[in-house]
């Protein structure tokens, strides 16, 4: 569930921190659910326990996790979502990485945006075929509508 890439430039503690945020965002972890102990997670990922501990401490400081003495660590009652500016920065960074790949594949603006939209819809459980519904009417030659499709799947 929680996957890390030790060779990435992003420090492992940050990958764990973001991983927990992601598990909460996708609903894999709900309020008050127990999370793996530092020892268990370190063992599972084979990373230095201090690294896991750092991630957990930051998550606890941010109110995402709650440590119950003698019991373990849990997702908070109402875990706060990521701070707005951090969220924006992450989204922009990820988009830049994607843009690099798209450019490598010499995808133009439209093709690149389409692929991103398709991937997002897929993640929401819509098949790519349905995605074409949103842009129906746009014939092959015309530019397609910008990616302002309505969010059908508001969480």
């Amino acid at each position, binding site marked *: 569930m929680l996957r*890390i890439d*030790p*060779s*990435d*430039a*992003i*420090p*492992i503690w940050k990958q764990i921190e973001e991983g927990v945020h992601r598990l909460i965002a996708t609903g894999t972890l709900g309020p008050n659910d127990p999370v793996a102990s*530092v*020892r268990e997670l*370190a*063992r599972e*990922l*084979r*990373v*230095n*326990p*201090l*690294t896991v501990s750092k991630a957990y401490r930051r998550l606890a400081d941010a109110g995402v996790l709650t440590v119950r003495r003698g019991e373990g660590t849990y997702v908070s009652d109402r875990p706060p979502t990521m701070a707005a500016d951090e969220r924006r920065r992450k989204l922009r960074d990820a988009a830049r990485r994607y843009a*690099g790949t798209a*450019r*490598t594949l010499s995808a133009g603006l439209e093709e690149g945006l389409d692929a991103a939209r398709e991937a997002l819809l897929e993640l929401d459980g819509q098949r790519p075929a349905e995605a074409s519904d949103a842009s129906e009417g746009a014939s092959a030659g015309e530019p397609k509508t910008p990616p302002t499709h309505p969010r059908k799947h508001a969480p």
Partner: protein
Amino acid sequence: MTEAKPGPIIDVEGLGVRYGKTAALRDVSLQVPPGAVTALLGRNGAGKSSLVRCLLGHRKPSSGRVELLGLDSWRHRAQLMEQIGVVPEDPDAPPTMTAEQLGRFSARLYPEWDAKGYAARLQRFDVPGRIAFARLSKGQRAQIMLSLALAVKPRVLILDDPTLGLDAVARRAVFEELVVELADRELTVLITSHDLPGIESIASHVAILKAGELLLDEELEQLKSRFRRIALGRVDGRGDRDADGSDLFEGLGPLEVRSRGRGIEALVSRFDDSAFERLRALPDVHSVETWPATLEDIVIALTDGGSH
């Protein structure tokens, strides 16, 4: 200052080791703080084993000093033995002794011997207790050595390539056991390894030796944040520039610069955002991409040939 900063657990200062006329180590200084896991890396023959031998008090430094837990490793070897767990590069134990016999033997040597922990680790490793050491696989022998080392409840653990020659399952089990031990109590580790992907997620610090000299000793996170691969997709007007393109990466500490078609790729050792933005803004440079450098990339770039 009211609080004394805890001194390093391993403190090597100006260490030199000579074998006859050959210098195995030259002026090596290295500090391992409490709780750190320092990966000592370098090519074969770079001096890792010489350094480990000095740490264990098996060899007297030709110059400089080596201290563990504040004690000179050569003069206080016997005293230190009780606080240091060791997994030697070549697991050696009397060939006819079984794991159980080795445990009973060690119990008499060490006052703090943890018999229960020893038995539990052998069980987790799935190592048979009653088969002679010489008849076990390389992985099983290494696992016995690690179990023996940890049963001493050491404050310092010195692992000399503990996963060398082990298969993927045995290697994973060794790293898992190490991680659990780190979670359970305060332990300082120095580990040499060629398994760079395996060590990359466990090490907190990295020290790199090359031809007997220490190239660096720093936190892994910092090391990885300053190394980066950069690819410039297309660079115009190359005629009037340096042949290899190193000038483009000025201020970024380029190590491996290669042209690739009309573009240029480099591994840089001093990546920072402002230098990168300058590069991105150069009018002759079309498209800039970056990738993280793995520990393996970094070690290879620093220790392969050349004089960086």
